[in-house]
């Protein structure tokens, strides 16, 4: 835990509050429509498939596959200046939605599209835990 965490922190609002609470207890979740079952992330005010207001959060398996990854050599926020370069990966969750995240630790040397990954959580502040992904 780092009391001087200087990287961007989530803006928690009514739509994302449950996601971040689940993350705090190390559970990855996506929004699910109770009417048509559509799963999506980021959350939407109504279900994009059927426009239902009746949506909830579903804890998912945390398993997914690597779709893409990039390495930032530029710091768009001051908090990243000391950490260049850093990696961001794009993961397709087994349940469907795509999420951007980071590798847990260094990027795997054998990274390739389709590589199986699993979610791990990093407690970056006392309130916020971020999901990251490690090779399965």
């Amino acid at each position: 835990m780092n009391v001087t965490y200087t990287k961007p922190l989530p803006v928690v609002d009514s739509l994302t509050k449950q996601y971040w609470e689940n993350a705090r207890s190390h559970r990855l979740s996506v929004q699910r429509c109770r009417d048509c079952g559509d799963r999506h992330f980021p959350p939407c005010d109504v279900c994009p498939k059927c426009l239902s207001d009746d949506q909830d959060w579903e804890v998912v398996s945390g398993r997914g596959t690597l779709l893409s990854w990039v390495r930032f050599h530029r710091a768009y926020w001051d908090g990243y200046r000391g950490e260049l370069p850093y990696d961001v990966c794009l993961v397709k969750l087994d349940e469907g939605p795509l999420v951007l995240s980071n590798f847990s630790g260094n990027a795997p040397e054998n990274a390739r599209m389709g590589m199986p990954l699993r979610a791990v959580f990093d407690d970056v502040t006392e309130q916020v835990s971020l999901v990251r992904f490690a090779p399965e």
Partner: protein
Amino acid sequence: MNDIKSLKNRIAVVGVGNTRYGSFPDVSDYGLGAQAFKAAIADCGLDKNQIDGLVCCRVPYYARMGEVLGLNPAWTIALPGHGRMSGMSIIEAMLALETGAAKYVALIYTNIGRSRRMSYGGEDSASIWDPWGFTSPGAAHALMFRMHMERYGTTTRQLAEVSVAIRGNAMLNPDAVMKKPITIDDHEAARRIVEPLGLLDYCLVNDGAVCMIMTTADRARDLAKPPVLISGFGARDGFERSSISNFDADFWFSEVREAGTQAFQMAGVGHDDVDAFMCYDNFSPTVLFSLEGLGYCERGESGAFVEGGTLGVHGRLPTNTDGGHLSNSYMQGWALNIEAVRQLRGECGARQVPDCEVVHYVAATPCTRSIIYTKG
């Protein structure tokens, strides 16, 4: 219901103008817009008071732009400063002219992003992905290009062909911002920004303004220069998968294919008829995605297609003959559209494509627009 294809050759571009491109911290958006407007008005020979339609794109306040130019149009729209808005604006102006909402439309685009030191990422464009450090349109294109590499074996040296050819074109354009020659090795050695992309894969960030004047083909006959006709256009938005800005896991393939097919069919031309290609090149991979989506090459083969100078003014498919966003100017599609007009008029000097009769514009984005211009 009218068939949209009935608009073929009914609307013309009659005037084009632009400012110099560079860094102009002492000129406002409106000052730049006025320079481009005056140039376009002079180009077509209209009295400015004949302008009764106004499109403002990235202009901070349309009413101030109208005040500065002394205009009271019958029809005005304002669009944000996104690259996709240029093609959208031109199509909107066509519809206004066809319906009679306006007779002469001035489309004005201004950009002082360089003087304002916009970074196009981080706090300039907050998103839900910020906590993981993901930001910027360039990073979205880096993600897509990595997928193209993984799926098709495309290499960064093939990607370099896009930047090198377009820089070569800029070297023939005295007004282009970047005219220093570059090689494939320079592209590979350039500073990485978001890997797999480096500095020479990114568009410039510079100040400037562009103005186009459009009217109906009938009215166009009385003006100073031969009209350039809009023979076809196509459109398809892809918002359903917008959760990562400027990213699509399928490179907007189906949207580009649909918009392109509609434009080709409406204009009654095919790929082999196209003399010059104006391709939205915010980042070099967008050119590869556009070529495949439009069917200039097969899916996955754009890397091989661009090898050997295909996109140069003297290549098989002259592309972004002014130097595009990568080397001429970051005018978010607008400079490419006036270059299309100038090519068809034969005004392009050293970079002129011989016997240029058909020019194809495309912006592969979440709002894909494709426009085919022909000689009037």
